């Protein structure tokens, strides 16, 4: 009997893993397909652009011929006399006169272009020139940017859980280390705080009770020492009430005595997972200095590797380029020699954008907390002058 149940259990575990991974893989796959389709479309439209010499290009070439005809053999004389003219002439030149569309709009070139569009990086070394190309670019961006945003939020959940778990483990280790050094009364407080903080990560999806509102606000005012005791007290109460409350989450699940119901349970769980996208990101509570440090280490790794095949960049330039790309600013001043290799690192780029995205989210919350403190401080200072004594 045991031998037949083993493979069944293994199969069930496999199925579980599959349905857990499936939504995330779904999003990423759809993004990849979208990028490939866009690349095909743009390489067809822009690559087959008819290059005809426009009137301005002819005039430009003619003026250039006139200038060069008047050049003498003496180099220094040429420089002074004709510098202004050449400057003015070259300023009127447009970039798309000199490039052959078939060279830039190959499949990989268009793929690179599509990536710069839906990640909103927008380097600008490649851009659509034809009218229909521009309209298609706008349409492509309209659907691509939300899709990219969805993928980012989805993977951000995973990253946020990993980060917060490892951070909690690190804090536990740190507390244990400190507990072995200080007196019992002090450590009791810390242990309680850590336990309650670790337990406050339990997710129960129900309308926000006062406890949860307080808990979510506690994250913002974590630094203030005078709130810590209140926080511990409230978390202790919350923990007590959690033990007594019936688990309302189970109302969606049915007892899986038959396989059809079990399948329905996995389906409903998958559907629930779709709804829960972005919630882990909201709950992340890691110090921002750590995030900034992670970003710098991450970018330094890339900046150390990138100059291996981009001979023109040194470490400092590669660092700058990676930073500008990962924050999606994307100036486009740094030209890549081999964009193909950069595409292969697309996983790195997505994770990097994740980390930057999380860091900016955290930075927002911290800044808002800071503003609140400043405003409350100003308000407290003003209070005595505003008191009106009733007569």
């Amino acid at each position, binding site marked *: 009997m045991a031998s037949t149940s083993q493979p069944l259990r293994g199969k069930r575990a496999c199925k579980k893993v599959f349905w857990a991974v499936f939504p995330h893989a779904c999003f990423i796959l759809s993004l990849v397909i979208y990028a490939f389709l866009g690349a095909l479309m743009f390489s067809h439209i822009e690559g087959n652009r008819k290059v005809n010499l426009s009137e301005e290009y002819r005039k430009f070439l003619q003026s250039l011929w006139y200038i060069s005809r008047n050049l003498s053999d003496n180099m220094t004389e040429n420089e002074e006399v004709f510098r202004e003219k050449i400057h*003015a002439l070259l*300023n009127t*030149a447009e970039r798309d006169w000199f490039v052959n569309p078939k060279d830039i709009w190959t499949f990989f070139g268009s793929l690179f272009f599509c990536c710069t569009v839906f990640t909103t990086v927008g380097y600008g070394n490649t851009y659509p020139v034809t009218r229909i190309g521009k309209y298609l670019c706008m349409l492509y961006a309209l659907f691509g940017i*939300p899709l990219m945003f969805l993928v980012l939020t989805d993977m951000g959940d995973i990253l946020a859980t990993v980060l917060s778990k490892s951070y909690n483990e690190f804090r536990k280790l740190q507390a244990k280390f400190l507990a072995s050094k200080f007196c019992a009364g002090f450590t009791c407080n810390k242990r309680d705080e850590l336990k309650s903080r670790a337990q406050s990560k339990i997710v129960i999806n129900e309308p926000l009770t006062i406890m949860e509102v307080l808990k979510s606000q506690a994250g913002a005012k974590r630094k203030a020492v005078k709130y810590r005791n209140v926080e511990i007290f409230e978390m202790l109460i919350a923990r007590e009430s959690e033990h007594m409350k019936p688990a309302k989450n189970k109302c969606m699940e049915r007892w899986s005595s038959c396989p059809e119901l079990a399948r329905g349970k996995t389906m409903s769980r998958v559907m629930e997972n779709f709804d829960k996208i972005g919630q882990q990101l909201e709950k992340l509570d890691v110090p921002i200095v750590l995030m900034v440090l992670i970003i710098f280490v991450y970018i330094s790794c890339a900046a150390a590797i990138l100059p291996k095949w981009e001979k023109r960049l040194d470490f400092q330039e590669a660092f700058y380029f990676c930073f500008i790309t990962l924050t999606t*600013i*994307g100036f*486009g001043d740094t030209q890549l020699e081999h964009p193909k290799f950069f595409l292969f690192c697309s996983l790195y780029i997505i994770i990097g954008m994740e980390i930057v995205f999380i860091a900016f989210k955290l930075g927002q919350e911290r*800044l808002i907390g800071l503003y609140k403190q400043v405003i409350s401080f100003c308000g407290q200072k003003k209070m005595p002058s505003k008191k009106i004594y009733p007569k």
Partner: protein
Amino acid sequence: LQDIIQAYKSGITLQGNTTSLGKWDYSGSFFFSISAITTIGYGNLSPSTAAGRIFCILFALFGIPLNLILLNEIGQLMLLGVQHCAHCLEEVFHWQKKASFLIKTCALVTGLLLFLLLPPLLFSDKEGWSYEEGFYYSFITLSTIGFGDYVIGMNPDRTYPGWYKNVISLWILFGMAWLALVIKFCINFLE
């Protein structure tokens, strides 16, 4: 001749006469910092010294969350304004449900007009672009893609009025806040 064309092909540009938005004076630098913290990143102007780049990195690190907060606040203010109008309309006309839907579509249409459909007219007047190019520029800017193929105020043959750059900066700010609000509504609506 071939050499000059070759040099231009490989991306070397001359530091010729450009407008004030192309030089590193105050207004050019202001426009550059806006393009950095809104993550548009045109690239017509970008730091080339090492110290400039390091400062740009630190500046963006603090500026982008600050910008996100600002956009959020502006979006909330706009939302409050729309709801206030909805309440006023409800009281005046006693429509109840229809009023909020009407107000929302009105706000959407006004935003569309103000931020996407009318600015290209301004651009065609001041920059000499066609309406399509102006629309393309508005979209690429507000979605923060920012290729840099079209940038305002870069034509040395044209004179720009004093209020031009400030109005464009305000337009970028409010337009991005409106767009973020619309996307948030769309996501809420789809869920």
